[in-house]
């Protein structure tokens, strides 16, 4: 039964080795999708290239459905799957700061590493900035500790929060995604794309 590492189907060391292979898949797909180009990534915010939206939401839906079906078939013990904790204020403020970083820098952390591997100098500089940002956070931690720890809500699922079953919730996400994909295809036709 999954998760394999929890049920001792694989050892802790095998788990780390598999993390490496999962990473290879992650990096390979990001690069193949064009996430190694900041102009392609930033395109979603201007409508000329919406690859980010399409890849991101398709991936989220596939993973959600995959986990849902695995759980229905009894393949996975969902209680052993890590659900990210929710600290309301830091989730919002952190997200806002990351959003500003995204539109200024053109990358997010994963995509910047991916772009750096194929020689994008702007990505290498972005990574340098990221190390600096994490260092500043660590050094100044007492200054933002209150915000970091505020409004801890536990490990809530969004479906529970809205009192919906997980299946119904995914259905709404899929509807929203189809609507956004339709808008994305329309935008790419409307806004010209240059060569890059």
């Amino acid at each position, binding site marked *: 039964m*999954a*998760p394999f590492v*929890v049920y001792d189907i694989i050892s802790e060391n095998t*788990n*780390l080795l598999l*993390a490496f292979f*999962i*990473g290879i898949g*992650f990096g*390979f*797909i990001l690069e*193949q*999708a*064009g996430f190694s180009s*900041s102009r*392609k990534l*930033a395109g979603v915010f*201007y409508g000329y290239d*919406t690859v980010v939206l399409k890849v*991101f*939401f*398709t*991936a989220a839906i*596939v*993973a959600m459905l995959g986990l849902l079906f695995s759980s229905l078939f009894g393949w996975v013990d969902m209680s052993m799957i*890590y659900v*990210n904790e*929710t600290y309301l204020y830091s989730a919002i*403020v*952190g997200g806002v*700061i*990351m*959003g*500003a*970083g*995204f*539109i*200024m820098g*053109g*990358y*997010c*952390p994963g995509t910047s*590493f991916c772009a750096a591997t194929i*020689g994008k100098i*702007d990505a290498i500089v972005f*990574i*340098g*900035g*990221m190390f*600096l*940002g*994490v260092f*500043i*956070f*660590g050094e100044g*931690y*007492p200054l933002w500790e209150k915000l970091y720890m505020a409004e801890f809500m536990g490990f809530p*699922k*969004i479906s529970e929060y809205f009192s919906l079953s997980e299946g119904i919730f995914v259905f709404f996400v899929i509807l929203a995604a189809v609507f956004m994909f339709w808008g994305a295809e329309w935008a790419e036709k409307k806004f010209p794309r240059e060569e*890059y």
Partner: protein
Amino acid sequence: MSEVRKTKYMNPYLAGVLLGLVVLSANLISGRGLGASGAVKSTIVAAVDAVAPAHAESTEYYVMAKGTHGNPLNNWLVYQMLGVVVGGFLSGVLSRRLTWKVEHNPKITSRTRLMFALAGGLLFGFGSQLGRGCTSGAALSGMAVFSLGGFITMAAIFGTAFGLAYFFRKLWI
């Protein structure tokens, strides 16, 4: 011409399905999602610990980050990020995209692009610590497991970037 360009990369919906399967396999194998900023954090913690061990011991965030496991670099996200570097490079080799360049809108200089890349990286690094994960760890992987926080962070990242797009348009269009 644009049609030729469009076929250069993988179909985005196919890439999305494959990426979703990678997120799914991380959960089924290891009981957790993907991440990128976590490896940066581990590296910083390890570096501070190596350069100034006393300072690392007395700074609460580093102590928390070091947690129970000994070497901060011996963790799941670090191995996964090493894989990302290998995977990205392999893809670049296969698709003949290996080239040193500063990619930027021709309307701005390389210098401007690099200054904003540095500032953007700094903000993203800081924000990823405050938000307990980045686009991969908090948003994508969080959404996959229905985390309320994951959805909130995703909305805040994309909402803010959309909201600020107008002010930074000269960088991109």
